[in-house]
């Protein structure tokens, strides 16, 4: 259990809730071992549990009860439709579901009650030292290049590999939670805060960014982790500079020099770290020198339990020195024979620094959402007026990239011309919002490369 890795007799704040309520490891230990929790635990011991909750506070507490007790915990993002949740649950063999969704019954898995509330008077359990008998497997969905995420199985060891366990440095650090705890990024912040000897501030679900940041400032939040796109939004939020930040982490997208410099200027006493993490490899590494990309020296030796190399095709490959994670229900190994995993990210070395160029698949990263150009092109081509379509990325100072479409139209004998806004509406009703081309250009010709394919450069 997580709490066994934390000094359970400590009275320092560990979890800080929206109402300002602080819970210490000692109080949380009383809650997880009380008779009411024991009864709850007895229903899920050894089971494959699905967790599908909207309330991050509830999830934060349930993680404490589930690790070491459930055989497998599958995190089911609560924003997904019931039929997607049913499919993910069946893919992960979920036997019992814990959910605060009013429509949870529609998922079709037997429901467990919610654990006892923190406000209850606890009874002392007869069995205070309930042993953790399972090395719980944690199953997380990937961050979704498609509408149905893939499931990846981890253990706490693989998830906590990047956690800096330094209780002296951790004391006095208060992480603010900006991600959903059902997702990889949220769980990383949770583990860093709890296992790193710090506290975690959990904002009210569904609060605006401005209100969340104000609550963080009030609670003394001095460490935040967010995507570069979310950081730009934070800097656009009035009074964000009042946050007494000491630790700033960027991840999930390529961090460019302007956001790194802007953060250094806005929070001069903060240490700014950008994290490169690969879902494919299940690992990553961090860069703390305030410059985009990473030093070419990272390609030599072992870095934080990871070996790095660049393939002859210019793709970054990683080799985790601790294995363990794998796609559920798929036999295909994630790694080459020598243990290296392709990250799918194209890189270039310039002046002893490695820079990221984009996805090898050509996927466009719009504010953390991956867009497959071929998918957008096929929707454009399904419009009766469109003869040829080419979708490329355009650099954006706000979302990293944007989707741009160039189109050749069919000659129309009547002379009536379709407008970019009609094409945009066509796309809006068939694609996710971030996939809809931000710019649509009607052109006379499109460039083809030597093999006769549409040039994406």
């Amino acid at each position, binding site marked *: 259990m997580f709490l066994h890795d934390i000094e359970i007799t400590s009275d320092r704040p560990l979890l800080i809730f929206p109402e300002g309520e602080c819970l210490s490891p000692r109080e949380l230990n009383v809650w997880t071992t009380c008779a009411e929790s024991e009864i709850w635990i007895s229903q899920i011991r050894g089971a494959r549990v699905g967790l599908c909750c909207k309330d991050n506070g509830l999830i934060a507490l349930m993680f404490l009860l589930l690790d070491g007790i459930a055989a497998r915990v599958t995190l089911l993002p609560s924003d997904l439709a019931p039929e997607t949740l049913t499919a993910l649950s069946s893919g992960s063999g979920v036997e019992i579901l814990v959910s605060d969704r009013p429509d949870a019954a529609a998922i079709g898995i037997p429901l467990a009650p919610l654990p006892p509330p923190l406000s209850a008077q606890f009874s002392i359990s007869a069995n205070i030292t309930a042993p953790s008998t399972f090395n719980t497997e944690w199953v997380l969905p990937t961050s979704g290049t498609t509408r149905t995420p893939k499931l990846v199985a981890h253990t706490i060891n693989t998830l906590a590999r990047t956690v800096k366990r330094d209780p002296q440095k951790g004391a006095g650090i208060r992480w603010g939670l900006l991600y959903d705890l059902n997702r990889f990024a949220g769980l990383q912040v949770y583990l860093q805060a709890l296992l790193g000897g710090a506290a975690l501030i959990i904002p009210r679900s569904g609060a605006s960014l401005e209100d969340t940041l104000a609550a963080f400032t009030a609670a003394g939040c001095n460490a935040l982790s967010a995507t570069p796109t979310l950081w730009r939004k934070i800097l656009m939020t009035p009074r964000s500079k009042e946050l007494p930040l000491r630790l700033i982490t960027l991840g999930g997208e390529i961090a460019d020099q302007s956001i790194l410099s802007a953060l250094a200027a806005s929070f001069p006493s903060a240490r700014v770290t950008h994290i490169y993490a690969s879902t494919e490899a299940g690992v990553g590494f961090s860069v703390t020198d305030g410059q985009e990309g990473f030093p070419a020296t990272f390609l030599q030796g072992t870095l934080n339990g990871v070996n790095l190399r660049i393939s002859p095709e210019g793709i970054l490959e990683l080799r985790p020195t601790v294995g363990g994670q794998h796609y559920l229900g798929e036999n295909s190994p994630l790694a080459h024979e020598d243990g290296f995993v392709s990250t799918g990210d194209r890189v270039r070395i310039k002046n002893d620094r490695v820079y990221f160029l984009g996805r090898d698949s050509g996927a466009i990263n719009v504010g953390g959402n991956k867009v497959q150009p071929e998918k957008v092109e096929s929707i454009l081509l399904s419009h009766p007026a469109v003869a040829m379509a080419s979708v490329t990325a355009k650099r954006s100072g706000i979302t990293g990239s944007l989707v741009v479409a160039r189109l050749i139209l069919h000659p129309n004998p009547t002379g009536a011309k379709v407008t970019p806004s009609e094409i945009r509406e066509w796309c809006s009703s068939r694609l996710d919002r971030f996939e809809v081309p931000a*710019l649509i250009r009607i052109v006379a010709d499109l460039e083809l490369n030597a093999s006769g394919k549409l040039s994406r450069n």
Partner: protein
Amino acid sequence: MKIDTIIRTTFLEICRENGVQSTSNPTRETILLQSGLDSLGFAILVARLEEILGYDPFLLMTEPVYPQTFGDFVDIYEQFKPTE
């Protein structure tokens, strides 16, 4: 047309396209993130303005600035206007 007018017109157009309800004319004091447009909406606005005005100040600036009000946003465009 004045830069302020072009930005205003394009802003309202992006609001309409993104189904943003509060499309009343923004004032200089309007807080951008309370205008209804999200990060993606702003990225589209900046890209669309680049098509019209021929420059993207956010890619030109060496010292990054993130505007908080509509007035800040217009000022950035004025500041980076290419000299004729």
